[in-house]
């Protein structure tokens, strides 16, 4: 029965190997993601006891982002790096703190718990500012205004939401757009599918005439297929995106809003917009100037 005696030994060895690998993986993960734009800068000093001081001491800021929402946060299949509009802004925040950014995947379901339990210091993951979420976490001022839009094939005769009557329109089952479309285009023939990639297939093969959801997701479809285009000027909803952090951390909020102000005013916001969105949608957008309060009151236009 010598085999049996080896089992616990093997198990212990395995646990140790796994634990070792786990530690190594963590360190390496941080290193590979952190293109460390902040390196080369002198250590910045912050008021003791603030979140900024804690992050600066640690030398890294952990930022929760999407991994599957091009062009805001996605894993580039060519180089396996996390890239996008949210990531660029995250790097700007890290640079201001003089630390390296570590990007952690935060899906819609876990991003708020990640903030409250301290897994991440900041979330930048296409998160719409609303009153319900503001009860749980703190928000920055809006750093991007997404809009509910309509996507069609180029040259379509759909010019606005009223033209959707009698047309086949695809959106995700259970999304807010199911309700929005029922209200704003009651005579549209809705095709409800599980994922937006199915909507992309349906509009590409001509089975539906239009897709409606956030312009950010629609832009991702245009990147896949440039024969698709947004219906100009038609906006169904307004979704101001905010960065999320621990509720009540007013010093961190002030700091982040300061970074955002600078990011918007020195042209970096505009460059990121053109790089990730404008070149595909052929549209222009100015940096948002709405405040958090306006976003919470639904006064953003």
């Amino acid at each position: 029965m010598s085999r049996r005696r080896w089992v616990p030994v093997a198990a212990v060895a395995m646990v140790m190997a796994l634990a070792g690998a786990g530690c190594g993986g963590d360190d390496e993960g941080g290193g590979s993601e952190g293109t460390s734009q902040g390196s080369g800068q002198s250590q910045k000093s912050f008021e003791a006891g603030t979140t900024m001081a804690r992050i600066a001491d640690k030398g890294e800021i952990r930022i929760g982002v999407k991994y599957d929402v091009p062009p805001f946060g996605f894993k580039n299949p060519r180089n396996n790096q996390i890239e996008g509009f949210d990531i660029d802004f995250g790097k700007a925040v890290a640079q201001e703190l003089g630390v390296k950014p570590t990007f952690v995947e935060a899906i819609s379901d876990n991003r708020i718990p990640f903030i409250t339990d301290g897994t991440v210091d900041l979330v930048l993951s296409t998160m719409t500012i609303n009153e319900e979420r503001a009860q749980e976490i703190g928000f920055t001022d809006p750093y991007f205004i997404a809009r509910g839009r309509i996507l069609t094939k180029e040259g379509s005769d759909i010019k606005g939401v009223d033209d959707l009557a009698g047309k086949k329109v695809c959106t995700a089952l259970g999304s807010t757009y199911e309700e929005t479309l029922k209200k704003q285009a009651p005579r549209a023939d809705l095709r409800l599918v599980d994922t937006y990639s199915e909507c992309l297939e349906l509009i590409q093969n001509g089975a539906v005439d239009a897709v409606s959801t956030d312009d950010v997701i629609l832009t991702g479809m245009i990147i896949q297929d440039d024969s698709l285009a947004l219906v100009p000027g038609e906006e169904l909803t307004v979704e101001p995106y905010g960065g999320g952090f621990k509720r009540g951390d007013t010093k961190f909020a002030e700091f982040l809003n300061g970074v955002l102000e600078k990011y918007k005013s020195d042209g970096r916001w505009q460059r990121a917009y053109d790089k990730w969105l404008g070149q595909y949608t052929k549209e222009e957008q100015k940096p948002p100037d709405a405040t958090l309060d306006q976003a919470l009151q639904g006064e953003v236009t």
Partner: protein
Amino acid sequence: MFDVLTENFDAFASGLWVTTRLVFASFVVALVLGTVVAALRVAPVRAMQAAGAVYVEIFRNTPLLVLLFISFAGLRRAEVDISAWTAGIASLGVYTSAYVAEALRSGVAAVSRGQIEAGLSLGFSYAAVLRRIVLPQAFRTVIAPLASVTIAMVKNSAIVGASLLALPDLLKEARIVNSNTFQTTEAFFWAAVGYLLLTATATVVFRALESRYAIHR
């Protein structure tokens, strides 16, 4: 419980109607194709047997969801203007026809070889032997297995609605009700009742056929 049904009755009713039409049309397709393929499989010509076997193995061994993707997305990309209805009926029909063919073949196998030889020696053509002697008996012996195939098809029809065909069938309507009301248990309970109505109807019809035509050996 009942308020979810009464408040969303139109949704459930239209979903049930879509599923009923889908199942009925697919059943006709499956029965016709299945009979032809079963005839091929018992034909005296090697090539015909092989063709029948290939058909059965392809469609019985391909997931229905894959057939739906190929028949809809694939054909549309090949510039064939196929509608979601046609693709759904064709896929479910063709998929089920492979099972129908196998059921019928087992029925044919149950008819003794001597009857076929007797028919042929009396000067009937092979097709006439099948049509007049073998298949009528085969259909009688396979009523029970066909009932199982039909019930499986009713339930498989839910895959059509869940696929990218996005047909508003009973399951899809239930999911929409669920996403609007968040009353998950109730929404799917009433969908299950709808499917039960269809399968129970099929059971009753096949029972009646069986008591009338079945051969008891």
